[in-house]
């Protein structure tokens, strides 16, 4: 299954002009558990799909209370950089959508 078929929300936004933060929420407890236990959401995965160094990944958090996963990473280009294409960072979620969850 792909992540987009298991999550009810997969969104991105700036947490400052220098950090992209990605939130995933799951309506279904079993989908959340499945993604969490699969280990697919990790520093390594985020670095790979966004083509950034692992050191740029600020953190990966699992918050059971709201069946939510958060990932934050330092942007390769700040949101206000002359070549940046996403001022609010609201369209940076796509690389996660097709992730295979085993």
């Amino acid at each position: 299954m792909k992540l987009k078929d298991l999550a009810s929300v997969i969104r991105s936004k700036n947490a400052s002009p220098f950090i992209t933060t990605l939130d995933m929420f799951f309506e279904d407890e079993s989908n959340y558990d499945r993604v969490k236990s699969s280990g697919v959401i990790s520093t390594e995965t985020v670095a790979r799909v966004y083509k950034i160094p692992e050191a740029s990944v600020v953190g990966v958090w699992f918050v059971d209370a709201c069946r939510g996963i958060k990932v934050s990473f330092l942007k390769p280009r700040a949101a206000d950089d002359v070549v940046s294409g996403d001022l609010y960072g609201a369209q940076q979620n796509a690389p996660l959508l097709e992730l295979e969850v085993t």
Partner: protein
Amino acid sequence: MPHADRPQTYEPRTDELRIYSATSFVGHGVDEESVERALSYGVHAIVAQGTTTDAGPYYLGTGKPVMAEEALRCDLEIIVCSAHKAGVPFIVSAGGSGSDLSTALSLRIIADICRECGLRLKVGVVWSEIDPDWLVDRIAGGVEARRIVPALRLEERLSCETVKKCKRIVAQVGPEVVMRLLSANPGLDGVLCGRALDVGLYAALPLMHGFDKGLSMHFGKIMEDGSLAATPGSGNDGLLGIIRKDHFDVMPMSPKRRCTPESVVGHAFYERSDPSREANPGGALDISGSTYVQLDDRTVRVTGSGWVPDPEYRVKLEGVTRIGYRSVCIAGVRDPQFIRNVDVILDECREIVCHYFRTLPAGSYTLTFRVYGRDAVLGACEPVPVVEGHEICILIDVVADSQQRADSICSFTSSTVSHHGFPGRLSTAGNLAMPFSPGRAISVGEVYQFSVWHALPLEDPCEPFRTEVVSLPGE
């Protein structure tokens, strides 16, 4: 939740404080019916935040408001008049960036509202623009302002040179500044801040009344965006919060919404890099051990908010530098042969432009081709950096050291791409479809970047801020 008498003074309350968060942002809209309902709960203050860096550095650079003036007027009128009607203070930040220009605009709007509605108000004003000479003196005197995010663009320690190059610098008004204004001026009808720590606006009154620090800051964190913490969320509706000794309750006023543990915890995620811990001036909010319980159908009770004090109080500074002027050309392409060759064509055109403007000093302009349909949104992070569709948009984006020069480079680039030849070309009359006139070069104006994103240690949290109490509407 009980109805209660509306207190007219700032006598310390230890039982509970009821605060209404009117909207997600001053200018996004305030629901009048929800405010009416909130007033029936006997709220002790109406609070709303309206400053941000989300919209980018342009607004701090130019001093222009982020939201339209009309939208500010609309929201402020409901907030100011409702607070007056209830005999409680309003606490707001407004105008967008916190530049003194935008704070002055907000103050003028409140004065107009007073005049039109026949109100006489005493309002505390906190100006958040920082005197660069004061900051330079502090840094030269050995105070270290360290960057908040390890981004390469930011100096690890803020230098006097960077401060001097800034067009404008603001500091985030903390709750202490609001508390001091309110305590020193009993009977104040409201407080207007420039750039403020959002959380601090909602935490100020609870802290002033001696409520727990971690709880008050967590309260602020959930309250700061109005009913975005409810479900369905809304950016133009409010949230009522009641804080007590060891917990707080939140509920939306609109019967269309409810708070659930998921909606409230989920909101803690929003636009924050870490969902469990948040750096604040003077310490960090730790909500890793917090619990969220559904109290009734629409109310959530929050407990277990921790506060980890820092040895020093650090205020966040935000400053911008002007890096040039922008000119853009927006152009569509439908020709399949052009689209197939787009990478090569744009590389060749860039070479022609570089050669044509070869006498300009190195680094005096940047030319960016943003190819929508390929990788314009994700840039280097794009997993599929090729064109798969039948139509693309090329945004020619030039930033140069004057508007005239940016326009000139953009215009030349546009005509170059439009008339560039390539193998198999059939549409020899032009490669670009411009949607409107002006087409070749649209003057966008000044371009800014954040160059200050640092935390400055302070002995006194109020020190950098100029405050005053004004009688409105005034003369």
